[in-house]
């Protein structure tokens, strides 16, 4: 089983997810089952292969011009759970600074 409780907690923190204590064991087991399965890839001869590169297209870059997609501030803020005075509002950002 490649993933244990501590590993689930570490990943969950990175992903900003909270796994209820009673579900950690089950999550670890489910993830481990999938990882055991994907370990089958080690049976393929991959040594000389490079990773797939995304979208290998000769796409031209964007010219440095303004376009029409810009939103009015009220539209930009319309879906915000909380906004005021043109700003998005969030609970305090705690930097965790100690002098």
């Amino acid at each position, binding site marked *: 089983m490649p993933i244990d409780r501590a590993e689930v907690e570490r990943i969950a923190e990175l*992903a900003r997810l909270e796994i209820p204590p009673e579900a950690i064991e089950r999550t670890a087991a489910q993830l481990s089952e999938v990882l055991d399965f994907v370990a089958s890839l080690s049976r393929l001869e991959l040594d000389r292969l490079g990773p797939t590169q995304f979208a290998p297209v000769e796409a031209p870059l964007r010219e440095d011009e303004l376009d029409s997609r810009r939103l009015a501030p009220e539209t930009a803020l319309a879906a915000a759970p909380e906004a005021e005075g043109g700003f*998005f509002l969030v609970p305090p950002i705690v930097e965790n600074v100690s002098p």
Partner: protein
Amino acid sequence: MSAAEAWRLSAASLADGVRAGSIGYQEAIESGWEGPAARWEPDVHAVVHADPEVRRRGAAGSNGGPLAGVPVLVKDNLCTMDYPTTCGSRILGGYRPPYDATVVARLREAGAVITGKGNMDEFAMGSSTEYSCYGPTRNPYDLERVPGGSSGGPAAAVAYGLCPIGLGSDTGGSVRQPAAFCGVFGLKPTYGRLSRYGLVAFGSSLDQVGIFARHAGDVALAYAALAGPDPFDATTRLGPAPGVSDWDRGVRGLTFGWPANLWKEGVDPEVVGALEQAAACLERCGARRSPLDFLPGEYAVATYYLVATAEASSNLARFDGVRYGFRHPESDDVRALYTRTRSAGFGPEVQRRILLGTYALSAGYYDAYYLTAQRARTRIRREYEAAFARCDFMLMPAAPSLPFRLGEKTDDPLEMYLSDIFTLGANLAGIPGLTVPLDLSAAGLPRAVQLLGPEDSEPLLLGAARVIEVRGEETRLGRDHLTEFAWPTKR
């Protein structure tokens, strides 16, 4: 035919009638709602956002383009300004985008009207449309069974007759597998042919907008309206998409690959029977069968679940309760806001995949998982290239089984993942795949096959599908005459 029966028409005939003035725009849009939806929608639950007033405005604003007056149900992960776009997720509850996806804009330019938003597995993660915050969609052929997924809503709606065309998204088979389960055509185009701008991303390098229709010709019609480069999507291919105007050219002289090793075990005999039947059709019409040995599908499943979840873990990071969607009300600081919002907003399968993808990218595991998967992806692409050096297209199951029962696979993620074993290769390789419905099984469930071809072979695949479609008329009544379209029997 009376205008009330307009829903029976193919999109092509409907648009013809609308342009000729024999069918009104409003009637063209409402017919599917008044007839089949009144009967089926309460049970099937294919639609998650609909609004008669928005439809009325849409019909009033339609034009005489190639899809004049054609209603289209669009999967709930394609951005629409006039309907919510929520990806079947609580975390996007009520969200209305301030812009249309490029494919949605192109539908409107072609005269089509968005008739509503179709149900889906949350963030397109699933193969049964059971993982939706709005509850599951059911298969119109058997309400105890799933319509497939993740684009189960549009697939089921096209099948029961709400609209002749639906749009889904296909990251690992999410258009082709539900098309097979619901007995309709389902095309996943070549990667980069349909713009992804406005498609809420799952696995960016795999995602492609796909088309549902009841006729091969309607798939071609929609493809012609949608395909082509988009300046807002850097991964769209330059140059015009392959022309589909002369797609109906038969299969004489073509060779199709027959990778029979893939269905030696673990595949429903009904599915194998459908393959034999389709192959016989193709051979009768002048195509040649070329048996070939293909890389077992387990490798594609393993590769896919690492690449797709890794990309998803990053793509879904933006759902954090700051700019849109759901926000958990009790958060003292911003870190708690993230964790609580995401834990309460995402369903269990989405969280599972985010965790898996985060793990595959995290320090110390990147090489072993993500990089290995990207190498395996190259290997799988080469496998397809080698196959297409020997044949023009391949015959493949669309799914290992006929539609399964609700709840049958929700407890076993790996089992669910394996139901995509025949479809996700096309996403890894970036090639087009087309599900072609054949007939009904003895139990009355749709049977279908999948055609895979090299990049930009959509016209060829549609031509081959047409052959199977026409031959299929021997066993199913008049697929190209929806006036005789066989409604699924309500159980």
